[in-house]
Structures are given as C-alpha cells and as structure tokens.
C-alpha cells in the first residue's frame, strides 16, 4: 500500500504553490486576450479559406457559402482565442490537473495589490467586475445611442434617403440588440455584482471565477456585433425573424455569434447571482429581512436563466440553417417561421421583465432612504415581484397575435397579459405608499423615481391597448409599439438605472456624482424623451408602420418632432455621461455613507476593502428602519376612544 492509500481521506492535501501566486494568470490580461483573439481569428480565417474550394456549392437562395464560413471561423477563433488569452480556461485546466488554487492564488486573482491593472485582467473580485460591467454598459449604450441618432436623422430627413435601405435596416437592428443587451446588464451588471454581495453581508459571490467569466464573455461578444455592421449588417430588426434573416450578407453570423456567447454570459451570471442570494446571505438575514433590491435581482436572474436558452437555441438553429443547410426555418423544406417566432418570444417576453424588475426594485430600494420612512408594504412588493415572475413565462405569444399561428390561443394570452398588469400595479402602489406623507430629501437619485413612475404609467397604459387583440390589429407593427416599449425599457429601465447609478456612485467610485450637471443631464434627457416618444405615439396612431425609412407625408410632422426630441435626448445623455466621467476623476470625495442609509453596503468604508467586511455582519432587525411613529395613528386612537365614550361603550 502506498502512503497515499493509507492516508486516503485522513486529511485534504494542501495545494502546492507553484511559483508566484497566480501562476500563469500573472501574465494574462486584456492585451494577451486581444492577441489571442485576433491571432486565432486570423489563423482560423486563413485555414478555412484554404480548405474551401472557391465557388463552393451553396444552397439555393442564400449567399455564397465561402465568405460565410471564413467569417464564422474568424468569429469562433476570436471568441476562443480571446477567452484563452484572458485566462478563462486556466481554471478548468487546473481543476483537471488537480492543481487547485491556494489562498495566495485566490487573492492574486481577486486583484490584491494590483492597482489599476486589475481592471484589465480576469479578476474575480466582484467589485472589480462591477466596475468593469459599468464601463462595458456605457460603451454599449453609447454605441446604441449613436445608432439611434443616425436612425432619427434618417427619419427626420423626410425629403430624401440619407442612408441606403440596406444600411438603414442594419442600423435599426443593431441599435435594437445593442440597447437590449445594454439594458439587460445596466442594473444586473454594475449593481448586482458590486453592491448585492455587500448588501447581503457576504465577502464575494458564490463563484468568483464564473463572475469574471461572464464579464469577459460579454467583452468577447460585443466585437462580434460591431463586426457585423461591416459585413452587411443584420437586415431584419433585432428580432431577426427568419427566413428574412437568412437572406443576405454574412453580417448576420456576427449577430448569431453575439447572442450565442451572450447567452452563456448571462446564464453563468444568473447561476452566480441566484446561488449567491440563496446561500450566502448574512446570519440572521431571513427573507423578510432581505432588502427588496435583492429580490428584484434574484427574480431577474431566474427569468434570465430559464428564458435565455430559447433565444440561444433559436440562433443556433438559424446558424445551422445558414451553414449546414438544415431547414428549421425554411418553409420550402419543412421549416416553420412560427417555430422561430415562438422560440424567440419565449425569451423575448421574460427578457423585458429582466430589464424592468431590477430597475423597479432599485427605485424601491432608494425610496426609504430619501423619504426616511420604511418601504410601504414590503410583503406586497415581494408579492408583486413574485407575481411578475410567475406570469412572465405565460405571456409570450402576445407578440404573435397577428401571426395567425393559432388564433384560438390569442384568448388565453390576452388574459394572462392583462393579468400581469396587476402585480406590476402592486409595485406602483408600494412606490406611492412609500412617498405618502414622506418628507422628501430632493437629491438626484430620488428625483429619477418621479421620471420613472411617470413613464411607467404611460408605458403601462399603452401596453394595455396592445394587449387587447382587436386593438392590436391596428397597432401591431406600427410606431405605437415602438413608442410603448421605449417608454418601458428606456423610460423606466434606463432612467431608473441612472438614478441607481447616481445613488451607488459614491460607494463604487469613492466620489459624489456632481448633482447639478447630473440633474441637468437627466432632466434634459427626460424632456427630450417625452418629445420624441409622445410624438412617436402620434405617428403610430396615424398609421406609420415600424422599420420604414420613408413614409407618407402624413407622418412628416410627427417625425420631425421626434427627431428634434431625439437630439435633445442625445445632448442630455452626453451631459450625464460627462458628469459621470468628470465626477469620477474630479468629484468631491465621498464619505462612506453620504445618504445615511441603514443598509449593509453603506456600513462599509469607501473604498470597500477586498474582503468587504472585517467581521461578517449578523442581521437582527428589519430593513428600512427609518421614520417616527405616525402622529395620525395616535389621533385616530384617541378619536376612537372618544367615540366609544360617546356611544356608551366602555
């Protein structure tokens, strides 16, 4: 018997420190990632090109296969090479070889003593990942915003075509998907990563290396999307309905790769977020002592978890149709366009709640701090979130009322869609109830709530119109729908996120966001937003279809107004972005708890230490313990007492 066998199970072997802490990770960073990605992409493209005979047979109706295979090989090479260069595979390889991380390795990977360099590496500290997500979000939203300006320019210049139809179609699609990706991660990225673990009293997330993985997968996906613009773009809106999306240029492959990679990124992030919240809350933090933002983040992660695979598979199947000539979505050969639509909307609907719920929960989290009173009816808020999650998977086919796929099914979907307005209404009540009789501390983060609730009402009501099947017979496919979802996703989602970022800015960056310029930016954007999208509702009511670059003169005025509004949004957003950037460098140094919040994340010093807490906290009281006893309660009790006396009761 060898020594190992008799000692088997006696104790866990000590991991051996090979060389300096971090091992090969010391030499890997964004630079090596770029080298790996671009290098492998180039090699893959060249090799694939060499193996395909020129003029290779392609399937009828579709573009020649050779450039597509080369592009696809380049995309795959980029993703794999980039992730390898970042060191994403080192973890699994070390696991396989039995070379586990030591404590020093783990600290290195968390970025200890690395200074600014840690933001350019595969760093596992959730706070670093949160900041990296914030930067990525600003880049993605900026890219999407730029495309929005181009779109509105085309629609504003009603007397000529500014762009070719092909380019216009591709920018509307790319704008859509860039914004959707940006909005999914705008709260879940920075705030779920940076703030949530501290808020629940943990030292990091459940799977720190998965955290870094989800961020760098996103970073790998974005260039795939941008590259598609240079190869003809996507021709079919962000929903890329088949079979239109299968026609035309190779750019579509860039989109498909973006989604396939992004779905892995969000899936992994969902696993991480859900496990962290389920297993790592501080001692004493029962569910009724858990802040509402945690519920919101959990709900979004859950919905993303079950819904994203459908989107991912829809793109895998579409890719297969394109490259391997399968016929999932080719009706001539047995494919069905309705299959695509169902798979797509099975994600497409829960996904809007993935955007809305964290933003709303974030607003709910802010209200008690700035009104100095408890959240009104915490249980009701939880019920609202649970209700939305429960119904989210049952409403998808309201996007398909007009497809004719199953007319009988329109009835139950109309029912479930109108029902979902009830739990959403619960959340509005909680906001109103928390505002009720509260003394308002009028700082920038809370002022965003007013913008959010206003937009939520308009978005919600117009959603009711759309949920009614007969009314949808007029509105489907018109600019009315576009205005509705911008009110929800941007009006509620983005403005809410802006308020949240203003709130957490001191904790994340150590400086106060300049309120003057931040407010000017936010409210300028808000005014521009109302002008743009109210006018867009009018265009939709008048009967303008969506995704058109030229239209009847009837729609000219509404489009001119929308375009002016859009430029105002652009100015406002630039001001807000400027406020973020300049405050990050030159803002007032923030105290560790500038808002006087009682939540755990504000009880840490700023900058937050690597391990978050010197001693893990123990939670003993309900959250939101603000406020004083209600004077009216006392008066009512006295009054009741008087009344009892008057009517002779004892």
């Amino acid at each position, binding site marked *: 018997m060898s020594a190992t066998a008799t000692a088997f199970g006696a104790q866990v072997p000590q991991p051996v420190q090979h060389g300096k802490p971090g091992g090969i990770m010391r030499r890997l960073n964004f630079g090596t990632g770029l080298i790996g990605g671009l290098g492998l992409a180039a090699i893959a493209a060249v090799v694939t090109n060499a193996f395909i005979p020129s003029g290779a047979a392609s399937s009828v109706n579709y573009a020649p296969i050779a450039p597509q295979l080369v592009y696809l090989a380049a995309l795959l090479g980029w993703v794999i090479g980039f992730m390898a260069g970042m060191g994403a595979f080192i973890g699994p390889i070390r696991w396989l070889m039995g070379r586990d991380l030591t404590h020093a390795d783990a600290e290195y990977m968390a970025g200890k003593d690395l200074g600014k360099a840690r933001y350019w590496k595969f760093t596992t500290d959730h706070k670093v990942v949160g900041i990296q997500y914030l930067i990525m979000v600003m880049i993605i939203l900026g890219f999407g915003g730029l495309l929005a300006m181009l779109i509105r320019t085309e629609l504003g210049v009603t007397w000529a075509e500014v762009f070719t*139809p092909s380019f216009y179609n591709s920018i509307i699609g790319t704008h859509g998907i860039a914004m959707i990706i940006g909005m999914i991660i705008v709260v879940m990225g920075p705030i779920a990563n940076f703030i949530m673990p501290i808020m629940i009293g943990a030292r990091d997330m459940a799977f720190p290396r998965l955290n870094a993985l989800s961020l760098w997968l996103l970073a790998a996906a974005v260039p795939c999307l941008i590259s598609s613009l240079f190869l003809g773009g996507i021709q079919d809106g962000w929903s890329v309905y088949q079979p239109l999306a299968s026609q035309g240029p190779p750019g579509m492959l860039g989109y498909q790769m973006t989604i396939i990679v992004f779905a892995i990124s969000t899936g992994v992030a969902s696993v991480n977020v859900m496990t962290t919240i389920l297993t790592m809350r501080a001692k004493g933090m029962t569910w009724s002592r858990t802040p509402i933002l945690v519920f919101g983040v959990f709900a979004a992660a859950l919905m993303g978890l079950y819904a994203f695979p459908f989107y991912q598979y829809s793109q895998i199947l579409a890719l297969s149709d394109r490259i391997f000539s399968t016929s999932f979505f080719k*009706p001539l050969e047995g494919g069905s366009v309705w299959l695509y639509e169902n798979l797509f909307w099975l994600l497409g609907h829960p996904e809007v709640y993935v955007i809305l719920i964290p933003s709303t929960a974030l607003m709910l989290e802010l209200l008690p701090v700035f009104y100095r009173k408890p959240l009104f009816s915490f249980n009701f808020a939880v019920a609202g979130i649970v209700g939305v999650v429960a119904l989210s998977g049952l409403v998808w086919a309201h996007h398909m009322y007009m497809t004719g796929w199953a007319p009988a099914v329109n009835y139950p979907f109309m029912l479930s869609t*109108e029902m979902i307005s009830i739990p959403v209404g619960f959340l509005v009540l909680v906001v109103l109830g928390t505002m009720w009789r509260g*003394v*308002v501390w*009028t700082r920038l983060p809370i002022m965003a709530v007013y913008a959010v609730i206003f937009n939520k009402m308009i978005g919600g009501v117009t959603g009711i119109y759309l949920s009614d*099947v007969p*009314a949808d017979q007029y509105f489907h496919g018109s600019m009315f729908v576009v205005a509705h979802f911008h009110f929800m996703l941007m009006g509620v989602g983005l403005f809410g996120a802006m308020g949240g970022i203003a709130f957490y800015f001191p904790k994340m960056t150590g400086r106060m966001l300049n309120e003057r310029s931040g407010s000017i930016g936010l409210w300028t954007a808000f005014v521009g937003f109302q002008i743009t999208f109210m006018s867009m509702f009018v265009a939709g009511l008048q009967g303008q279809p969506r*995704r058109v670059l030229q239209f009847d003169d009837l729609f000219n005025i509404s489009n001119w107004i929308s375009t002016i509004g859009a430029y105002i949004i652009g100015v406002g957003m630039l001001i807000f972005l400027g406020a973020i950037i300049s405050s990050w460098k030159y803002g007032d140094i923030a105290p560790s708890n500038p808002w006087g919040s009682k939540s755990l994340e504000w009880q840490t010093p700023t900058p937050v230490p690597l391990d978050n807490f010197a001693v893990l906290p123990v939670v003993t009281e309900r959250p939101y313990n603000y406020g004083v006893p209600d004077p009216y309660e006392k008066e009512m009790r006295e009054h009741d007492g008087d009344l009892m006396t*008057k009517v002779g009761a004892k």
Partner: protein
Amino acid sequence: MTATDVRPDPDGPETPTNRPPSMHRVKNWIRRPYARGIMVLTVVIGFLLLPLCWLLLAAMNQTGAPASPIMRDIEQTVFVFTLVSIPICAFVFAVLVYSLLGWKHVKGDQVPKDESPAIRSNTIGVVLWTVVSSALAFFLVVWGLIELAQITANSYGTIPADEQPADSQALIVNVTGQQWVWTFEYPQYDKITSETLYLEKDRPVYFNVTSKDVIHNFWAVELGVKIDANPGAITQTGVTPDKAGTFNVRCAELCGLHHAYMETQIQVLDKGSFNSWAREMGGSKTS
C-alpha cells in the same frame, strides 16, 4: 370632559345604531389636508387628460376614417380603455405632484432627521388598490374577450381556404405578399389577379393570405384588418367594408430592402361598379 363635548354636532346627537365608527374614520381622513389635496389634484388632472380620449381617435383617423365595423370597434376600444385608465393615471400623477408640492422637502447635503411617519402597511389602502386594479383588469379582459369573439365570428377565417365554397355570399380574395408587392387573386372570378385590392361595399370578404418568400404583414389600415403573410402557411382574416372609397394597404412586418414601399390601395366599390370591374378584368362569376 373631552374636547368633542364642546363642539356642537351638526347632525344631532349620536345614537349607537346609526353611523358606524368606520364612517367617522373616513370623514376624519377626508378632513386631512393632504387627502383633500390629492383628491382635488386627481380630479383636475383627470379632466386635463380627458381630451385624450378624442385626440387619440383623431390621430387614428388621419390616414382615413374607419371604413368597417371592425375599425369602429377598435376605435371604441381605444376610447373606452383611455377613459378607464385616466382615473388611475390621474391619481398616480396627483400623488407624484403632491409629494413634491404638498409634503415637506429638505435640500442639501446633510442627512435629514427622521420626520416621516413610519407607515409599514395600510390594509385598507392595499385591499382597495388590489380590488380596484383587479376589477379594472377584469373589465378590460372581459371587454377584450367579447370584442375578440365578435370580430372573429364575423371575420377571422374559421373556414380554412379549402373549405370555402366558391359560391358563398362572401367575396374570397387570396392575398400573396412577396418582396415587395401585394397580389390579389379572385378565385370566384376566374382567378383574375390585380395589384390593387378591389372590394364590394357591404359584402363580407374572406382573405386567405400567404407569402412567397419572407414574412410580410397585410394591413388594411382603415378596415382595421391585419394578419401576417407567412411563407409556407395560409392565414385567414376577413371584414365587411361599409364605406365606399379609396383606402390603404401597408406592409407591417419588415421584409427586406423595400419594405417601406410595399403599399397598395384598396378600392371599395358598390355592387354595380365592382361587377363591371370584374368583367373588365376578364372574370365572370363562376357558378
């Protein structure tokens, strides 16, 4: 002696049998300044929003006035839904406004002292809100379901293409969408085809719709009819136009480069003119 003994009660002496204590609670609640303020604001905002009911319809009529019972139904729905939504929106906006103008605010960098009442819940408020919002949602659903059933009974193809009798009273039009043109075929009239949609006033028409390439969407705007044109499938819809005139068909699903130009016209003619058109095109009614 309590203060209440001093104030004369304008309703007369209290007896144990009339006016339950909860009515006093409500009366007292209404006496609070913020309650009245918010109620007044709600009513004012509500009235300011009321013209929307008509303005929305005015916008919808800009392409053309409704030309079928379906379109009129749709407009009525928009009107009613707006009307029903206004009180809720007005109330929410009133609270937003009042919280900024009516209740106290604090500015500045100092964390304010806690002065707000620590209201963690209010059963009446929650119950009232749940009941009202559910009732409203229920009303909207029932309205919608009934309306949908009516429209379907009158128009949606419950009759698949192969079972539609050629000699039926209704006009049957086969609509084909392809990049980027609409074609209409009249199987009852020797299969004449046209790129303008000719219909007969007051005669029900069934549309069978398909596509030869990608997904399009057949939208007859003033008739209130919309259905996807799917490749590989035949979808149905229908309507009875009740106004003569020229109307619009637009494509409402992005279908490629010239989606924006995929439009055509509808000519609704009276019976005589429709028949002469059909004869001119070389079709006589089969049967």
